[in-house]
């Protein structure tokens, strides 16, 4: 017999909210929407630069989680990270479909389902504080490194496309991007 999770409220953790969404509690989706819709929508706007498409992506993101909650595995990362990653992926797909020379992001498969429990502490940090910590972490990067990461994230350009566009050898771009991401991860180690 299935037991219903307790009702959620604004103070509930992301995990509690997610479990209630799994149990198809509408209130949980409402709380989640109020918590993350601005972040999801702003991410889509940043990538797409288009209000209508950003609204569509936001709608798709929340409805996808509601209709197919099994796509998120709580032991593999934060719910906010999942929502943002889904938003980014859908936005970049739209961005690419705009250009004729569309190339689908083809992630090389890495061994599959081997992730052990990974529960980042980010869930226990308030939204406003997350923004502050991320901004502080980004300040530790040079503006070039930051630009590289942002180009990869929001424009969805491959490293070879960035290299070609900026006239920099591919090896240099790859190594600088990786170093930049390592620096960012290290600066955010108390969140991830």
């Amino acid at each position, binding site marked *: 017999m299935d037991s219903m999770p307790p009702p959620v409220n604004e103070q509930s953790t992301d995990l509690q909210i997610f479990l209630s969404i799994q149990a198809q509690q509408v*209130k949980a989706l409402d709380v989640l929407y109020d918590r993350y819709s601005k972040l999801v929508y702003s991410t889509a706007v940043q990538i797409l630069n288009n209000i209508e498409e950003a609204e569509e992506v936001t709608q798709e993101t929340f409805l996808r989680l509601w209709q197919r909650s099994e796509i998120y595995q709580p032991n593999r990362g934060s719910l906010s990270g999942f929502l943002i990653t889904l938003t980014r992926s859908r936005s970049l797909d739209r961005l690419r479909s705009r250009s004729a020379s569309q190339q689908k992001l083809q992630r090389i498969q890495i061994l599959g389902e081997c992730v052990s429990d990974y529960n980042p502490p980010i869930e226990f940090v308030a939204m406003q504080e997350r923004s502050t910590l991320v901004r502080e972490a980004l300040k530790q990067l040079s503006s070039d490194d930051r630009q590289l990461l942002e180009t990869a994230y929001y424009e969805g350009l491959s490293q070879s496309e960035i290299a070609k566009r900026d006239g920099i050898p591919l090896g240099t771009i790859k190594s600088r991007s*990786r170093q930049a991401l390592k620096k960012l*991860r290290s600066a955010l180690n108390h969140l991830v």
Partner: protein
Amino acid sequence: MTRSTHPPNPTDLVAGYVLNDLSPEESDRLNQALAETPTLHAEIASFTEAFSLLPYDVPIVEPSTHLKSKIFNAVTQSIGQPAPTRPQPPTAHVVSITSAPRRNWKRWYPAISTSIAAIALATIGLNQIQIRRQSQQTIALQQQVEATNTELTRLRSELQANQGTIALLSQSYTRAYSLIGVTSLPQNSRRAAARLFAKPGDRNVTLVAQALPKLPINQIYRLWAVATPSVAPMYCGQFRQDDSGTAQWVAPNAACTKNPSQLLITLDAPSDPITSAGPLVMRSSS
């Protein structure tokens, strides 16, 4: 391709994986490293999480309340749909009671009682599920009503201020362009957003903006239309929005609204020449 003299270490490969820039060779090497060191999977999760935090730095843009109501409308519809039908459990044990009249009934009393109890429990369970579904629908409808009411209140107040815009919008051939601020406002990290309405080839232009800063007397916004990327933007008039964020003006050239590939808004001084533009403030998607 440029080759690095030292092969990348596993952490570099993890970063490369998250950035989606692994070569097939590097991918093989990472797979091998993961097989040897399973804790690297947690590294991948951690790097992925760090990369996904970047949007916490983007300027916040408020979604419209209409969006929430659209989402909850879809949720209500999904709840309202009948649950997928499942194959009925075999009812042989029930049939057997009627099809074997000569059997000793007393021998079957416990089984019959159990079956009746099971059916009763299943019925109660079904009722509970139905009640739960109905209450979910009620909550979803309440969310929708709340969101719709908020939207209605906002629209009513806008109705008063934007009669002209609404008249324009009611004409089916009016085109709407979305513009987004290129940078966030320093005071609240938000980006301005606007919609510009015009009939193709008509010089009358209406703009409705959100979070676009009001300007002092020595500054003004200017609209520019880009016909094709290879041609210089065309000056399309200047404006200051009123308290409701609305501005209406007449563009100097009908070509401004004749299917431009992009619209730009810059910040200028009223006395600046119109042969060059000031800093870019907003742009439409091209």
